[in-house]
């Protein structure tokens, strides 16, 4: 009878692989997104992009089908809600047109138009991240279109996130709800605070709000654009969802709903702006 014998070889192989992985982690941490590891990632994205596009056109209906089955109840409810909303919106259309004209005038006066003269690159969202610990999307524009790491990304209603990785034809946008994302915001009282993501589908958290500050649910917070901030000033970040005074705490317990529906992103705009080049929008 043959007896299976354990040898030291598998353990040696494991050791080599673990050491390789640790080396890669160290290299990547030191390069912080750029460097050799950044290039490797970019190359991989470029190589796979055409295959992903082809797969999309073939398999997307299948994915849509399953996702439709999984969210059938939600879809039905949403349909009803949307019909209701459409009816209301149609009624409000005329009023809205007037309000829009007014607000446009106000914005122009106060220079609050959040894109202004900053050059932008329009892009389509092609994929969500495959990770369960990162809230990001892939867009179909990269260095070829002038997209660079660190650029802010917005959609019609406000801030979406910022570019954290870029290849020739793709870029990865870290959404504002990612747990590693934070942005300086201006409160309606003109005080500065910091909004930070807490994960997919969860409201953002607003830190550094003084216990005495008066805030109302529904207030819109804008990027502060203070010196060395990663975002230009005046981009809507989100709407206050809840404000709670905690007795004895050094700050208020404030949560924020993103201004943009990040779960259904389709088109975004990358602002070709960096803290160094400064506020082209002003």
């Amino acid at each position: 009878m043959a007896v299976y014998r354990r040898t030291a070889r598998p353990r040696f192989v494991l050791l080599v692989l673990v050491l390789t992985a640790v080396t890669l982690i160290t290299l990547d941490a030191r390069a912080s997104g750029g460097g050799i590891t950044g290039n490797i990632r970019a190359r991989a994205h470029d190589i796979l992009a055409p295959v992903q596009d082809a797969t999309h056109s073939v398999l997307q209906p299948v994915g849509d089908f399953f996702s439709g089955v999984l969210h059938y109840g939600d879809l039905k409810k949403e349909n009803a809600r949307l019909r209701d909303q459409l009816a209301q919106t149609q009624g409000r259309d005329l009023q809205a047109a007037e309000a829009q004209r007014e607000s446009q005038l106000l914005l122009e006066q106060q220079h609050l138009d959040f894109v202004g003269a900053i050059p932008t690159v329009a892009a389509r969202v092609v994929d969500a991240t495959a990770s369960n610990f990162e809230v990001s999307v892939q867009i179909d524009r990269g260095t070829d279109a002038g997209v660079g790491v660190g650029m802010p990304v917005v959609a019609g209603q406000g801030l979406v996130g910022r570019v954290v990785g870029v290849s020739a034809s793709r870029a990865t946008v870290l959404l504002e709800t990612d747990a590693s994302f934070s942005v300086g915001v201006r409160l309606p009282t003109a005080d500065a605070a910091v909004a930070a993501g807490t994960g997919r589908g969860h409201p953002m958290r607003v830190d550094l709000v003084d216990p005495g500050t008066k805030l109302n649910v529904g207030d819109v917070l804008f990027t502060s654009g203070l010196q060395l901030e990663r975002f230009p000033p005046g981009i809507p970040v989100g709407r206050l969802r809840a404000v709670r005074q905690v007795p004895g705490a050094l700050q208020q317990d404030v949560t924020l709903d993103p201004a943009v529906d990040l779960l259904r992103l389709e088109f975004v705009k990358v602002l070709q702006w960096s803290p160094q080049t400064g506020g082209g929008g002003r």
Partner: protein
Amino acid sequence: MSAAGWARARVGAVLLAAIVIQTTVLAGLRVDGVSPDLMLVIAIAGGLAGGPEQGAQIGFAAGLLTDLFVQATPLGLAALTLCLVGYAVGALQHTVLRAGWWLPPVVGLVGSSGAVLLFVAAGITVGQTQLTAPGPLRLFEIAGLVGAMNAVLAAPVSRMVTWAAAGSAGAALVRQSQQDRAAVR
């Protein structure tokens, strides 16, 4: 090309197909915000099909591919986690497990949940504190959901990886150890 060479080519092709499916279809297939992790299932299936050494190698490759398509965690973190998972599953397969139809789903469930927690633990060790931001309850929820969804994927994926790895040294070892255990019984 030798049988082992063909096996290597087939496993490579399976890995590439898997990362395309993971980044295009499965990424959008979310239950409560959590998507299944096909690369993790492949690491586990690699351990089942090829034993500890091949499990570690396949896991490392699957993890590295995963790492290339995420940005927030450092390159190598998933590779580290998945090579450990592939090794562990392979070692268990050699020593204690009796093969049966239930094996891939059960190992898929337990292995995947464990791997998610291992990934977070490894991430914290290298300073990725944002991984714990969702809170411990949500972490276990994510681990459980990934485990449940991966258990469903495990049976077909395991069959595919076993087919791909057939002819390799690891697959031969696994088969021999199974025969030995059958003989002992």
